[in-house]
């Protein structure tokens, strides 16, 4: 496992805080992460139910469970990334390098880094119906950038693919990814892909 210093933003005060991004999480790390995030997920669930918030306004990944992904990290193709800030896991991402290939016409069949899963800690979520502003932001951005970096390091020229949850589509579009239609094999989520040129643009700031 390697680590690198980065920064994320604490919402309160809008200040940049130092954090570490880890590359190469182990299965046990995912179990620990879920143990740390689980209670907050449950509390949020209870609050959402208690206030009768309509399901459509719930955070989309409320019921995820990272410990269920622990076994997948045993494969060479899978890489786990995590961000730690103030001694807590603030974001996690799982990428794969073999199970998906590029779909963009100009890149068809070439390898890419597929973002299997990306999530910021539940206390970072902005949940308007509960008045939760979220502690840290830019976590998702930093993690996604790590996926692009991984793609470059692997020799995939920055190609990245992912299925975005509905509320995240706009973000990935703005990052330069091309939507390639709904995928009925993935619960009709829209598949997005970043090509080499767009990746370079993204990394250049």
């Amino acid at each position: 496992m390697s680590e690198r210093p980065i920064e994320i933003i604490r919402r309160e005060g809008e200040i940049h805080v130092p954090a570490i991004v880890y590359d190469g999480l182990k299965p046990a790390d995912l179990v620990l992460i879920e143990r740390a995030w689980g209670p907050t997920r449950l509390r949020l669930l209870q609050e959402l139910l208690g206030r009768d918030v309509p399901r459509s306004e719930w955070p989309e990944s409320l019921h995820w469970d990272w410990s269920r992904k622990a076994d997948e990290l045993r494969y060479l193709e899978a890489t786990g990334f995590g961000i730690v800030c103030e001694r807590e896991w603030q974001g996690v991402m799982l990428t794969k390098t073999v199970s998906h290939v590029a779909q963009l016409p100009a890149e068809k069949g070439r390898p890419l880094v597929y973002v299997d899963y990306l999530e910021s800690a539940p206390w970072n979520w902005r949940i308007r119906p509960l008045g939760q502003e979220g502690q840290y932001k830019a976590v998702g951005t930093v993690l996604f950038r790590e996926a692009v970096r991984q793609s470059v390091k692997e020799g995939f020229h920055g190609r990245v693919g992912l299925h975005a949850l509905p509320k995240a589509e706009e973000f990935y579009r703005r990052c330069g990814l091309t939507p390639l239609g709904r995928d009925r094999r993935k619960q009709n989520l829209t598949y997005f892909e970043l090509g080499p040129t767009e990746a370079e643009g993204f990394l250049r700031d």
Partner: protein
Amino acid sequence: MSTDARFEDRPSREWLRRMAELEDRCESVTAGGLAHDLGMLEAALSEEPWLFGRFIQFARRARHLSVEKLAEQADIDIAEILGIECGANMKPAPRTVHKLAQTLGLSSGKLMELCGLAEPQDEGLRLAALRFAARSEPVTELSAAEREAFEEFVKVLSESPESI
């Protein structure tokens, strides 16, 4: 993509702020093709063993039964009940569920649905179970008897030769 130098540096703070703003406008950047089947609430309750377990525990306590007593009355293994209550048991045996239903005075059919052994008949049951779980107290406060039992066990642990 020739040089590595370009992306070894950290992104500028300005860029990070812009992206964070974008994140905020979009509410979320979660990605995950399997998000929906990894326990989304629409899925069968059987994927949420903690929910079934919580319910059984409360049904038991509502009848003022200890796990021991329940095990005895329902003729089920203590270990099995404990496993169910803490959500470790993904699919309890049909006989166990049936016995629990009988002993706790619950509808066997509904209980089967709740733990995923039977096809859900309607959305209402699932929602009702969730509502119940959300409103029920998590077991944070120990009753006097529980505290006594706990302290007794702690004593045994500290007396055992393996403890350092």
